[in-house]
């Protein structure tokens, strides 16, 4: 049978300028291979994703194989593109928070904080943000780093066939999300950080809950540590896999744990402190081997550092009980005062009483800010925070209006994912999964 009258229903053949191309979608591989085998220049292109369970959401990898070896790797992205940046241009600056929190859905607080720091820099009110609001932001960010790293570790292990670490990781993540729920009312996409401060103060009992959670987490992190650190199967799957050196990282714009795994202690919290990070005691974790195992170790140890920061925040918050969490400027501060009533969270009756019965000015401010928003002087800024995945930068442009002129997020996932090809080409196909897992891309952030 010649290749032209090959009529396997699972492997249709067509002639192209590059030779015969077979599309194999199922059936008996041996039979197909024998039919194709006559051609010496055979190349097998395997499409991995976009719905493959170990491609971190909707990532599509196009792999060109020579046997089990990957000779070329291309990423196909964009399946989760939702036009958040464009949408932000049609809402007020405050409403933007609700959009950007949905970009990298595993680290919403970082998106919000980076965006709000940018808006505040444009407004020129960076110095006026109340201390308590900044400490709450730092605490929420570090808790968020823990929950994000838990997913990275858990799903990373799951993708390599280890189920228990995932169960442990998600069990711990749930505790962090409980804290988020208590503080902001939501487990994810909280829109809790607002330009000028945070949406509301901590509820009573929050600090006690946080302290208890930190204690629990510190104890339970050991479960995963015992399971994975030094585990010979885990090491065989991750050691010397997905290697990327420092030069590769700088030229590809790779930041975060992947960069620190090459030995460079570059962490924006230390090198370019924002939100008062210079006042906290913590260590920047590095490793030197630059492989998947090093990145895993870094994430594992960063959990403990985050816990340290959360504890210091709790101490500070106990001392600043009762101080404001929003700027005093009534032309910027979000006016609504939330309170928990019989029918759920909403505007507090006291606030309604003030604006409806007592203060005309308060009513005007409320109305103007909620319908129209505040004006932001024209100009552009770039602010960056160290998200769990690396440098999360926000480029904001204002034309002086009540809506952003341009919102651009420099997503670490997007830039880090570019290094996939450099990490996996020349390696085994099974190691692709380990390499991608160690980059920890979140497709919501990649595609935005």
């Amino acid at each position, binding site marked *: 049978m010649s290749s032209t009258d090959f009529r396997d229903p699972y492997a249709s053949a067509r002639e192209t300028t590059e030779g015969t191309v077979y599309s194999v979608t199922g059936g008996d591989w041996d039979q197909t291979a024998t039919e194709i085998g006559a051609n010496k220049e055979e190349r097998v292109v395997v499409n991995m994703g976009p719905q493959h369970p170990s491609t971190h959401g909707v990532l599509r990898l196009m792999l060109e194989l020579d046997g089990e070896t990957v000779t070329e790797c291309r990423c196909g992205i*964009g399946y989760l593109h939702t036009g958040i940046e464009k949408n932000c241009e049609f809402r007020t600056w405050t409403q933007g928070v609700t959009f950007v929190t949905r970009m990298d859905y595993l680290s919403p607080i970082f998106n919000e904080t980076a965006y709000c720091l940018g808006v505040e820099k444009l407004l020129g009110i960076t110095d006026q943000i109340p201390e308590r609001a900044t400490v709450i932001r730092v605490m929420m960010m570090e808790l968020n780093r823990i929950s994000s790293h838990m997913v990275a570790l858990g799903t990373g292990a799951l993708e390599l066939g280890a189920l228990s670490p995932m169960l442990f990781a998600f069990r711990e993540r749930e505790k962090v999300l409980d804290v988020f729920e208590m503080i902001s009312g939501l487990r994810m996409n909280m829109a809790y950080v607002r330009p000028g401060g945070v949406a509301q103060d901590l509820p009573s009992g929050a600090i006690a809950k946080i302290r208890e959670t930190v204690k629990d987490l510190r104890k339970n992190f050991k479960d995963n540590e015992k399971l994975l650190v030094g585990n010979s199967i885990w090491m065989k799957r991750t050691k010397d896999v997905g290697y990327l050196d420092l030069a590769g990282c700088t030229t590809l714009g790779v930041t975060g744990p992947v960069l620190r795994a090459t030995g460079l202690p570059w962490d924006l919290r230390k090198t370019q402190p924002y939100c008062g990070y210079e006042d906290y005691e913590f260590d920047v974790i590095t490793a030197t081997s630059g492989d998947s195992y090093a990145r895993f170790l870094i994430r594992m140890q960063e959990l403990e550092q985050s816990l340290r920061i959360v504890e210091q925040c709790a101490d500070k918050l106990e001392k600043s009980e009762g101080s404001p969490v929003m700027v005093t400027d009534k032309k910027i501060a979000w006016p609504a005062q939330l309170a928990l009533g019989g029918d759920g969270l909403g505007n507090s009756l006291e606030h309604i009483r003030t604006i409806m019965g007592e203060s005309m000015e308060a009513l005007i401010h409320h109305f103007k800010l909620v319908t129209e928003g505040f004006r932001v002087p024209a100009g*552009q800024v770039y602010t960056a925070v160290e998200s769990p995945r690396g440098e999360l930068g926000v480029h904001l442009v204002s034309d002086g209006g009540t809506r952003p002129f341009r919102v651009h997020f*420099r997503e670490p996932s*997007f830039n880090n994912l570019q290094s996939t090809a450099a990490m996996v080409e020349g390696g085994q196909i099974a190691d692709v999964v380990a390499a991608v897992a160690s980059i920890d891309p979140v497709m919501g952030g990649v595609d*935005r």
Partner: protein
Amino acid sequence: MFGVKGTGDTSGYGGLVRSSEQPGSSQRPYGSYFDEVADELERAYPLFSDAIEKVIVDRGELTLHIKRERLVEVAKILRDTPSLRFEFCLGVSGVHYPNEKGRELHAVYPLLSITNNRRIRLEVSVPESDPHIPSLVEVWAGNNWNERETYDMFGIIFDGHPALTRILMPDDWPGHPQRKDYPLGGIEVEYKGAVIPPPDRRRSYR
């Protein structure tokens, strides 16, 4: 009031427009480490005054507006000169200013130097009718996807890019979604008899 005619709108909203201008060029001294960066660049690059259209220092950030013909040269010098050493290019962000005639499309490159712990920003502007900017992929390979994204969203063509194709939108998508003249889309929503227009057709305050 406020010039509203022929509408039942009694809210006082009259589409008032306040003018507001982007910050203009700055004069020396720029402050902070910006003078040093400018001096070093001037020393390392003899064509400095020809390549740099203007320098803007605003909100504690330095922006160098660069002629597109000189972009790659300046980028290489910023990366390779030991006293500058901007190892990281943090992507490229497009901005569309439809009112700036002749320089509607801007490409903004934030740079980071790990060696000196400094940040600066390069900005290149081109007309909509000739949206070509030389690619920086040969200088910072990591700009590959970022330039594809900016091409996808703004239609800026990066000459010399190894494979300038759409990255987020489907390959056969018409238009460039983040240009200001590209509609947001959306439908009207009716609720209890009242119709709420889609976001891009709601009133906006300027």
